[in-house]
């Protein structure tokens, strides 16, 4: 998995430069509203996917509850939006941290699927619970006002730029974590839990930590998402969003920091070519199922996978036959 990591720093710098250029273009020129919206949406999804990757690629757990955390961040941010976007952002971060820690809390470690079942249940319970609160718009949702900063309304391009900036910060944080002692502790937990315990790394604590940090990303992402759509409803945070986030991580490659960004890019572009929501989820679901099967390290590993197949074609077939 750490195959792509050497590239990461230069890729990260390149990404930030490109993002800055895009941000300048978006604000200076009068770009198409729709393009602005897409860029903002892309940055939002990418932020959430990078966060989820801290769990999936970091401690090696599967979470399908991140849409629930995003919902907590979004609604908490929405409630504090009147106090200014900075406050709302901070609240979303804290709410995401807490929500994430909650997801990582139980010690259930049965078989190989770890916390996935727990996050699955909680992740669906949170939006349902929010739907029961009429003050929050209930089941049918409510509109979200544009945030105001220094008495000026933050409009489309600036929102997209804000999302890009937050994504860059998020990428930097994720990159730093992966290289710190904490990140190495997570890798140890992912690769061999018993070995990690022997090195006095508490797997449970590390898992909670990873979920908490990852939750902060999801919380901010949720807030950004509803600011972009200017509308919020519990259905926005259904389990489909969680699985789509997972698909971004897997398709882009869970080994690297930038992989999920790539996955989010595919996702947002792909959405434009497929007309209905149902057909979109169908295709993304199929993509997830097939990608994890044939290219478990993401699209960037395709060349090396194909090369390996060509080189070992006979061996590859023999192995398949032996398996059946």
């Amino acid at each position, binding site marked *: 998995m750490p195959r792509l990591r050497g590239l990461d720093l230069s890729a990260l710098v390149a990404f930030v430069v490109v993002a800055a250029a895009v941000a300048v273009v978006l604000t200076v020129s009068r770009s198409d509203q729709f393009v602005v919206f897409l860029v903002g949406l892309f940055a939002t999804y990418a932020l959430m996917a990078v966060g989820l990757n801290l769990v999936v690629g970091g401690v090696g757990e599967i979470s399908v509850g991140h849409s629930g955390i995003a919902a907590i961040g979004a609604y908490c941010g929405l409630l504090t939006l009147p106090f200014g976007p900075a406050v709302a952002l901070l609240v979303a971060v804290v709410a995401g941290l807490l929500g994430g820690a909650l997801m990582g809390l139980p*010690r259930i470690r049965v078989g190989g699927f770890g916390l996935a079942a727990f996050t699955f249940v909680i992740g669906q319970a949170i939006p349902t619970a929010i739907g029961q609160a009429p003050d929050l718009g209930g089941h049918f949702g409510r509109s979200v006002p544009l945030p105001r900063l220094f008495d000026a309304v933050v409009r489309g391009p600036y929102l997209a730029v804000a999302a890009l900036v937050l994504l860059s910060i998020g990428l930097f944080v994720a990159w730093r974590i992966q290289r710190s002692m904490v990140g190495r502790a997570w890798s140890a937990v992912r690769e061999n839990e018993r070995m990690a315990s022997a090195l006095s790394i508490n797997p449970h604590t590390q898992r909670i930590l990873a979920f908490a940090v990852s939750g902060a990303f999801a919380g901010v992402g949720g807030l950004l998402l509803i600011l972009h759509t200017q509308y919020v409803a519990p259905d926005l945070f259904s389990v489909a969003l969680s*699985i789509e986030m997972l698909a971004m991580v897997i398709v882009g490659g869970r080994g690297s920091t930038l992989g999920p960004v790539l996955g989010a890019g595919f996702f947002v572009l792909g959405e434009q070519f497929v007309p209905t929501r149902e057909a979109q989820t169908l295709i993304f679901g199929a993509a997830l199922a097939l990608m994890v099967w044939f290219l478990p390290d993401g699209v960037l590993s395709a060349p090396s996978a194909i090369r390996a197949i060509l080189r070992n074609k006979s061996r590859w077939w023999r192995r398949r036959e032996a398996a059946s």
Partner: protein
Amino acid sequence: VLTLLLTGVSLGAVYALMALSLVFIFRATRLVNFAHGQIVSLGVFVFLQLALVQALPGIVAIVIAVVVVALAAVGIGLAVRRMEVAGGELVPLVSTFGLMLVVSSVIELRWGSGQPYVIPAPFGKDLVEVFGSAIPRQYLSSLAIAVLGTLAMALFLARTQIGLQIRAAADSVETSELLGVPTRQLRIVVWCVGTLAGLLAAFPYVNMVFLDTHALNTLMLKGFTAAALGGFRSFTAALIGGLSLGVLEVGLSRFTSGTIADLGSMAAIIAMLFIVPRGMFALRSDRD
């Protein structure tokens, strides 16, 4: 109170059967199929299409629905085997999420409009008197189906040769292979039986509530919660979990709205998980 208890127990019995089907598959294959509810849902919608729209006789429709679900289960079983060879246990787990999205969007595309549907109850929906309290008839039939299904599964595991082999393979794959148990073929049987048990839980459930594209997802969530109580290992805990979920839910719904009762009952079970992290009735061999 008796009415409430009976409705709760009937609902709970169905949850328990759902949980059992999940535990059954998990113990034998070490995989939780997150698309379980969607596959089962597909079977119910196939039945709906054939019985109500095409007006085929009920028995024929049920047989076709069962065959469809069984084929889907065999397909999943075969694919999972391939995936485990290719990339370990995380791969099939993640693909079940993908499969879940695929099947649910197929259902949404085909049957998304015109819901919720009402599936006619085979034994009628009038009220019957039991010990002096009235209870809708479909609840009683659900209770009967769920109890029979659970008993059938217990007998299958305890008394038949295949059941014995499945239990052996669940305990130790290597040992049972050495003793000549065809573990690979068994897994396919497990996928089939487990998924059909889920279907058996789904029919009474849609009789008690109604059928829309999300109804069976709710049922699966309940099954998950109940199964989680026993750490996905213990059949007893899954049974108790399912029954208590049902009773709690019906009990709570007397005081608040249905959805809050739903959430409350699930929260109670999940709270139990924090108190007993390894699950109730943890098998001795699990403790390390």
